[in-house]
């Protein structure tokens, strides 16, 4: 661990802790994991006025030091100095929501009793003022015995003051902090209430924005319409907004490929670079815009406070399949990627609820499936409007997502009746105030996602593409032999073997071939197909110039394409998901169960689709 002074940001959920963390550290953040647990560690550097750096760590939000979930356990262990791999913080910044003082002060008092050097950040004072509350930070400071600084993290107000106080705290002579004896919960609560009443100078009832919005957003009918509308806009936007940037990336990859073709003589090296590296990786990177659009919506829904409303609306429905509305949040995150989704299930206290949510998370259509859907839909579904402003392609995509959701609900119901049988856990959530997020915070989140995606493209996807290229390129077809290179290669032979199993559901040899490397990551199926067809084309310039979509359209019958889409609704292959499930469930039993049931579902769904489509004469 670093020798820098360590300062921990700690506080209740919804106290604006992360916004304060972003405002203090800017883009210089490091995301990692606490050793042995999958709780994300968010750390960043903060420079004091004399230039001395301080390491700032953003601890998971919690309501008390009595942990209810693995996240909250980490917060407790860090502030107590019991977390492996983290030294005890040299100072704490306790973040409290000015508009929720009595409640947040109770936890603050619990933290103050630890006796660490502490500053209290009285955050979101602007929202408190909006709600008609006037607070006196000086009174609060006197009552608590530590500096209290009013901040508005999203407007960067009070940050310099906070930095100054922190400097004084870290430089200053060690002074005695009140280490209160462990007090009983109700006594601390009453004390917090007393201090809050002393610090609140004036309270005038005022119209509250949140209450007004909630009348619509939480309405049983209008709220549901709003939620479905939002989700529909989200999926339409994934297509509509991404066209231009995708064309740019494609043009760029094409330009590089052409430059390589011009610079290198025809041969194995050129084939490796063009077919393996540029075509393979390029065909996945091209989906970065769509993935970022999806993440943009999810980050916005979370940051504005709407996500919890969605959970509230969905709780009734989720209860019917034995889950709670809380599961809706990890499941919605799983639309971006099942890994953060599965990790987010840690906030679900009930172990059976949590396990069920983990097991169905891979059924939510993750962004890695988007490249696969996008290629197939682009090639086989005509780009026309079914209704004014509603494209058929977007509509089909929406249906695929819907199929995943319906599948997940049915599976959850079955699991709750069998392997995760038992009384359902409850649904208890705080509903934060609505707020407009700072654009920088959203951009930072998107940037972090883009880096993670490109790292994946650069490592897992690159490696598997290269291995596939090797397996496809060797042994070389002897000159004059009429068999194609793909048929002759090692990969082609493996795929032909596998095809015996997959042929009944309409999959051809090329699909079997693509499914193997797609174990590494689902989107590799696309780069694998690109590599297969690129090698298959050999030197045929006319073929090389055609896009992957056009090639697929030439070579696949429609029922096969539809079966391929159906397969990917359930497609279990993603090593990272299996690994994170193993880690979160502490063993191999559940990940193996998950993979098994997903494979079975994928096979049956693809089969039914293929047979139905063929029978319908498509």
């Amino acid at each position: 661990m670093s020798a820098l002074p360590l300062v921990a940001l700690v506080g209740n959920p919804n106290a604006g802790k992360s916004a304060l963390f972003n405002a203090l550290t800017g883009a210089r953040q490091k995301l990692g994991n606490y050793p042995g647990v999958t709780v994300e560690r968010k750390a960043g550097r903060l420079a004091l006025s004399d230039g001395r750096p301080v390491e700032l760590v953003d601890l998971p939000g919690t309501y008390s030091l009595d942990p209810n979930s693995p996240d909250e356990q980490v917060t407790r262990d860090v502030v107590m100095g019991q977390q492996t791999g983290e030294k005890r913080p040299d100072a704490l910044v306790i973040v409290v929501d000015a508009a929720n003082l009595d409640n947040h002060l109770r936890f603050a008092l619990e933290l103050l009793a630890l006796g660490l050097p502490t500053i209290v950040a009285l955050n979101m004072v602007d929202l408190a003022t909006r709600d008609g509350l006037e607070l006196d930070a000086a009174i609060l400071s006197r009552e608590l015995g530590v500096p209290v600084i009013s901040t508005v993290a999203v407007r960067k107000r009070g940050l310099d003051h906070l930095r100054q106080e922190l400097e004084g705290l870290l430089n200053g002579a060690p002074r005695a902090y009140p280490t209160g004896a462990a007090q009983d919960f109700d006594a601390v609560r009453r004390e917090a209430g007393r201090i809050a009443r002393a610090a609140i100078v004036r309270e005038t009832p005022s119209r509250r924005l949140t209450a007004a919005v909630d009348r619509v957003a939480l309405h049983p009918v209008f709220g549901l319409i709003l939620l479905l509308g939002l989700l529909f806009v989200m999926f339409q936007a994934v297509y509509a907004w991404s066209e231009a940037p995708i064309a740019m990336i494609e043009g760029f990859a094409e330009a590089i490929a052409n430059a390589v073709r011009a610079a290198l003589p025809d041969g194995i090296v050129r084939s490796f670079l063009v077919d393996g590296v540029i075509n393979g990786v390029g065909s996945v990177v091209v989906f970065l815009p769509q993935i970022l659009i999806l993440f943009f919506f999810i980050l916005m829904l979370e940051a504005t406070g709407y996500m919890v409303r969605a959970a509230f609306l969905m709780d009734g429905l989720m209860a019917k399949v034995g889950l709670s509305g809380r599961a809706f949040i990890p499941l919605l995150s799983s639309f971006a990627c099942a890994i953060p989704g599965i990790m987010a299930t840690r906030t679900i206290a009930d172990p059976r609820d949590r396990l069920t949510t983990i097991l169905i998370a891979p059924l939510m259509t993750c962004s890695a499936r988007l490249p696969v859907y996008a290629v197939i839909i682009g090639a086989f579904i005509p780009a026309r409007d079914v209704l004014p402003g509603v494209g058929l392609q977007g509509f089909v995509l929406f249906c695929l997502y819907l199929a995943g959701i319906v599948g997940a609900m049915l599976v959850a119901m079955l699991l709750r009746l069998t392997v995760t049988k038992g009384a359902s856990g409850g649904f208890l959530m705080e509903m934060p105030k609505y707020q407009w997020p700072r654009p920088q915070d959203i951009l930072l989140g998107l940037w972090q996602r883009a880096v993670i995606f490109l790292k994946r493209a650069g490592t897992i996807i690159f490696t598997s593409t290269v291995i596939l290229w090797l397996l496809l390129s060797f042994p070389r077809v002897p000159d004059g032999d009429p068999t194609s290179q793909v048929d002759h290669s090692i990969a082609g032979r493996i795929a032909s073997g596998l095809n015996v199993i997959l042929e009944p559901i309409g999959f051809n040899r090329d699909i079997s071939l693509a499914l193997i490397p797609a174990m590494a990551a689902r989107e590799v199926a696309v780069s694998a197909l690109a590599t297969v067809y690129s090698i298959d084309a050999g030197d045929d310039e006319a073929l090389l110039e055609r896009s992957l979509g056009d090639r697929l359209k030439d070579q696949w019958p429609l029922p096969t394409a539809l079966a391929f889409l159906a397969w990917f609704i359930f497609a279990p292959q993603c090593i990272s998901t299996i690994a994170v499930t193993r880690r979160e469930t502490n063993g191999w039993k559940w990940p193996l169960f998950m993979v098994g049931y997903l494979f079975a579902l994928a096979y049956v769904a693809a089969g039914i689709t293929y047979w139905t489509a063929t029978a319908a004469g498509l």
Partner: protein
Amino acid sequence: MRLTDLPLRQPAYVDLIDWSVLTPSEGQRLREFGLCEGASVEALHHGGIFGKGPIACKIGRMTVAMRRNHAAAVTVRTGPEAIGPEQDA
């Protein structure tokens, strides 16, 4: 009257909580949300198209969502005579 029967947006106070119907961790979470005898409560929204969804209510300054079975464990009373331990502390 139970919290589930409290008309929407009518201020009330918590009279009694039947902790026995809550699991220890649910009880702890509700306490952390500020639920205690004497706390002010206001039911804000009933969720669910079929009337069986969760209830959003204000406890003190915090808005909290809970299921009906939990809300039914909370007995509330309305009116100005409501003085809880929160006030006389």
